[in-house]
């Protein structure tokens, strides 16, 4: 019951923050070279940050599962992986919308950040497909994929500093002006609140599913 309240509270806070986001973003100044299109930054970067965080949640939970075989960590890993896919779709859709106006192209295969982000997303798609279709024993294999996916995150993050292409460097968030920083953290808070709520809900779904399977097994006996 306490968790239900927490989830409901987080969802309400997230919806309020998302509803207020256009007004807060509108109040932020225009970036000097990109103008209005730069405002996609306020959804694109927080969703990428949440995607990375979720990859770490999945990777750490998978490592715990590989070491101890605790069902709780497996459920957390499943939830984390699915949320990497969901937030990854947002990153991979909002990014090209921004790029089309700012760079003149939807996608650039020469940009290492774009390609590594796509690879990271595909690794977690592979994880969810493994859990869905690979049958018994897929949990251990998927856990290894989850750890591998997490290991990719630093490469995606630092790729812009190592291979200088179209993407701005990682220093862009640290060097934001105060007028741009406020809407950024507003949107980040909205994404994080919704992420935690979705993670808790997804873990609860897995727990309910395993309880249902156990009850079915008992009924058959």
């Amino acid at each position, binding site marked *: 019951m306490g968790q239900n309240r927490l989830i409901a509270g987080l969802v309400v806070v997230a919806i309020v923050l998302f509803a207020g986001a256009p007004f807060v973003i509108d109040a932020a100044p225009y970036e000097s070279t990109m103008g209005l299109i730069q*405002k996609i930054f306020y959804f694109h970067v927080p969703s990428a940050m949440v995607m990375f965080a979720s990859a770490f949640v999945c990777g750490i939970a998978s490592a715990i599962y590989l070491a101890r075989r605790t069902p709780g960590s497996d459920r957390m890993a499943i939830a984390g992986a699915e949320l990497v896919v969901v937030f990854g779709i947002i990153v991979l859709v909002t990014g090209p*919308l*921004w790029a*089309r106006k700012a760079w003149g192209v939807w996608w650039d295969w020469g940009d290492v950040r774009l390609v590594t982000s796509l690879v990271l997303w595909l690794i977690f798609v592979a994880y969810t497909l493994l859990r869905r279709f690979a049958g018994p024993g897929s949990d251990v294999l998927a856990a290894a994929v989850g750890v591998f996916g997490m290991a990719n995150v630093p490469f995606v993050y630092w790729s812009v500093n190592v291979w200088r292409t179209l993407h701005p460097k990682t220093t862009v968030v640290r060097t934001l002006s105060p007028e741009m920083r406020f809407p950024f953290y507003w949107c980040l808070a909205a994404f994080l609140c919704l992420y935690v709520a*979705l993670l808790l809900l997804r873990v609860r779904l897995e727990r*309910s599913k395993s309880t249902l399977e156990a009850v079915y097994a008992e*009924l058959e006996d």
Partner: protein
Amino acid sequence: MTNVRWKMFNVRWVAAVAVCVAAVSTAVLAQQPPAPEGFIPMSEVTNREVLPAAPLVFYAYAFVWVALMGYLWVIWRRIGQVEQDLSAVTRRLNQGREGR
């Protein structure tokens, strides 16, 4: 005689290479825009692609809303179905135990 044939072969070969070079360079030059006679004011450029930013920002924001709220709704529905099944099966199990 052999010397004349050899010379003819060389001439044909050089002519073929020259034609190929001319054809390729014509195609390459045809793709290049003509050199400007002088500076052109920005206001006189007519065929510039102007892509409005506002719809792209709107699509991005709308996509975020649809994706996240859609996923939230799907998860909520799946939890509702599983928990409904769970309560039904638990009831059957309890009835079976009472019957014994």
